[in-house]
């Protein structure tokens, strides 16, 4: 079958399709079909729920599972302690959920379930999803900032010790860099996940067309491409972790701005 359609479309993996015949579900005029994106979001949430629930036994001598969960919560706790300080404690649940949800999404999207005929869908490779996560973080920063400091929150745009003739120059720059934050936050995660998956798909198309072109091409092009693909897969696992970490880290930095100003 692959021989006839030699061209592999690297973007096909990102198409959103309604599942279980739900394409006509409507709510107030909007289509609310249960898509593959929603399905994988639900799977990530359930996997995360099971993972955390398994570690909530509160044993005095923790088992392996409890240690795994506690090392993650401890990691997030340390990160907030280092970046926000004592006030950071109350954000641990949010940052932990954010970090683990993105991590599970990225890693589940990389699972090689395609050999079983199930195609994992990486919903973090869509700007709509990462955008909503970024808006969530950004609105927490805004709400906390204005709640705690009132209009004094605007002093964020004038860094401490700025000479007064520089204020008209510095303030707009700081304002722009503040407003770009949700976009950069969302864009980073979405592009990193999407670029990696496109790269894997392109390499797989090299393997398929190389092998189809004959044994010599298969050895010359297919085998090195396959080896490269294995390496890139390992890199993608690393990227999945780093991107989740960076998202959580930057969110905690922005929360630090809101809590402590400059």
């Amino acid at each position, binding site marked *: 079958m692959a021989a006839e359609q030699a061209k592999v479309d690297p973007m096909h993996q990102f198409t959103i399709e309604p599942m279980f015949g739900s394409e006509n579900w409507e709510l107030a005029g909007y289509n609310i079909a249960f898509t593959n994106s929603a399905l994988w979001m639900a799977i990530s949430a359930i996997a995360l729920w099971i993972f955390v629930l398994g570690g909530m036994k509160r044993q005095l001598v923790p088992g392996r599972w409890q240690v795994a969960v506690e090392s993650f919560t401890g990691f997030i706790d340390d990160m907030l302690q280092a970046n926000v300080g004592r006030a950071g404690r109350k954000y641990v649940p949010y940052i932990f959920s954010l970090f683990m949800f993105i991590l599970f999404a990225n890693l589940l999207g990389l699972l090689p379930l395609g050999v079983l005929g199930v195609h994992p869908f990486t919903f973090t490779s869509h700007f709509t999803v990462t955008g909503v996560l970024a808006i969530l973080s950004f609105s927490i920063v805004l709400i906390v900032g204005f709640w705690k400091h009132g209009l004094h929150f605007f002093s964020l745009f004038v860094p401490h010790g700025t000479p007064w003739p520089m204020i008209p120059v510095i303030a707009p720059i700081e304002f722009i860099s503040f407003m770009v934050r949700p976009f950069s936050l969302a864009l980073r995660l979405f592009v990193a996940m999407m670029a990696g998956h496109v790269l894997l798909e392109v390499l797989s198309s090299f393997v398929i067309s190389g092998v189809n072109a004959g044994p010599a091409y298969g050895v010359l092009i297919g085998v090195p491409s396959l080896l490269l693909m294995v390496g890139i897969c390992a890199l993608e696992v690393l990227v999945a972790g780093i991107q989740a*970490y960076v998202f959580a880290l930057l969110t905690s930095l922005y929360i630090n701005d809101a809590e402590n100003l400059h």
Partner: protein
Amino acid sequence: MDAEAAKLLGAGFAAIGAGLASIGVGNVFAKFLEGALRNPGAADAQQGRLFIGFAGAELLGLLAFVIAALLIFA
């Protein structure tokens, strides 16, 4: 040159940005390692800053990808 060809050329040129960002990301980790080997005791505490620098450098490379994707698909 018709508009479609110019678009594809532009998308190709945008890939230069990804390459330049790779220099930036390499620089971030190289300098961190350099500093960390001189003073290993202080290295662990600076890992957060390492990833902030990494995120900043990487974002600009990813923007090049976005430009390329916009030129090809939009």
